[in-house]
């Protein structure tokens, strides 16, 4: 099993407050990996570092062994990494189809050729639309394609975000709290989708989540961080029985 994404000794601080303190973790290809930790443990910051929205003060990042510490957020998509956001971050004024197509932005080729509608670009565009439809089909969004996403229900918007992530043809998807705010039915739905994506499409999934039962049931491997530092790692079963983790979640609740 090869590691697709790895970070070593990542340290990030905001004006004296240390958000990530020497975090090291590796994501094995083809798995669903979870990242958990109490509120304010630095999960989102780590996500931002991995997707290059945030620069680490020290530490290194590797994607398939190549150093990605200096790349920009928009370089991630063409490399095969994509993410979703904690609160829904869709292009609200645009249709579902357009939202999905943006996900495939790095596949449009030469922007000028695309803009002036040269034959090859047109062909490419048609192919992208076709693929967007297939993704929509898979996520049961085909009836929403022409609707503006701001008018869609919450759970559907979550699926649109997922579809957008898939459109970039990723090898790994980073999901920032994919089921936050969803009801049980929607959660089950998304869980199924995540598993489908992982098993049928072979895409590695790295997710941050607060819903423990969901994390425990779908993850192959889990990292726990607390106060910005590695606390524990292991299979769901190991984590559930880890005393440090239990203490972090229960005993020291008021200090986080």
């Amino acid at each position, binding site marked *: 099993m090869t590691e697709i994404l790895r970070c070593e000794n990542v340290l990030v601080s905001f004006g004296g407050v240390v958000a990530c303190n020497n975090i090291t973790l590796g994501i094995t290809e083809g798995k669903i990996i979870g990242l958990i930790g109490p509120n304010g443990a630095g999960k989102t910051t780590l996500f931002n570092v991995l997707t290059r929205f945030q620069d680490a003060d020290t530490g290194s990042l590797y994607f398939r062994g190549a150093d990605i510490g200096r790349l920009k957020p928009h370089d991630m998509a063409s490399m095969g990494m994509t993410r979703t*956001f904690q609160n829904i971050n869709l292009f609200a004024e645009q249709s579902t189809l357009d939202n999905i197509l943006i996900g495939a932005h790095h596949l449009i080729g030469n922007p000028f050729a695309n803009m002036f509608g040269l034959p090859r670009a047109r062909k490419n565009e048609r192919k992208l639309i076709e693929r967007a439809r297939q993704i929509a089909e898979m996520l049961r969004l085909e009836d929403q394609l022409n609707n503006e996403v701001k008018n869609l229900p919450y759970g559907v918007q979550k699926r649109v975000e997922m579809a957008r992530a898939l459109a970039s043809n990723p090898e790994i998807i980073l999901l920032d709290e994919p089921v936050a705010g969803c009801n049980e039915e929607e959660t089950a739905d998304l869980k199924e989708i995540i598993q489908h994506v992982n098993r049928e499409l072979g895409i590695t999934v790295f997710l941050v989540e607060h819903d423990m039962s969901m994390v425990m049931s779908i993850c192959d491997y889990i990292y726990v961080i607390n106060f910005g530092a590695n606390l524990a790692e292991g299979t769901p079963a190991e984590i559930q029985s880890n005393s440090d983790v239990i203490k972090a979640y229960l005993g020291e609740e008021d200090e986080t």
Partner: protein
Amino acid sequence: MFGQLFISGVATGALYALTAVAVVVVFRNTRTINLAQGDFAMVGAFAALVFIKDFGLNYYVALFGAVLTCVLLGIAFERIVMRPIADSDWLTLFTATLGMYYVLHGVAGWFWGRDTKAFPVTFDPTPIEVIGGLVSQGHVINMAWAGGIGLMLFWFFRYTKQGIAMRAVTDDPDTAMLMGIPVRFIVLLTWGMAGFLAAFAGVLLAPIVYVAPEMMDEVLIKGYVAAVFGGLYSIPGAILGALMIGITENMAGGYLGSHFKTATAFVMIVVLLAFRPQGLFGIQKRREF
């Protein structure tokens, strides 16, 4: 020459300061650049003019009347125009204030004509000497008032319930709402305050820039630049920005040549924004997710 240029620059900067502060006060709580701020002031100046000339009132009574007029105008503007579109994007709010600019401009031109009018209260022409430079009394009085209002704002934001609530709304409107702060009321108060500051700006500037519908246009634009200079969130920053612009302008006018005088502020702002997009004293807001 340097001393005199400096002092005159400070005097001019003080003219921009009141408008800059008003721009900041509105921006902090509504995230809107108020293009009508200058026209509020213009209405205030005209109101004072009418009170003094047509009703024969005392200067201070007229000032009070102007303040009342402008506060009501600010509140009415919030209730009628800004509230229905409060949830819209930046562009919408900005252009709404622009609409108000047009309306007030047109109404003022219609009521009072386009002619420049003298403000009946003029100051004693004997100048006062300050560290080697001469300042006219009008400017000194203007600076004193501006300083007084600055202190009052400081006290307001530091010690009054409304002021603290306003600051909370500035920091995080959503949390403030959850904490039980009546955000709507605070926004209304903000606009009232904008009117209050505008009235002072209008009446104080009237003897210096003279009364006409477009009297505040130039001051207003410099006021924005000053506000952005200070980072748009900081009142002391806005005042400092205004003074800096006044001084730099005068220095450029004196040493580089008058052609470049008015452009100085804009060159400064373009260069500043290129290197410090958050303004001189602005806080780089953490990117939120």
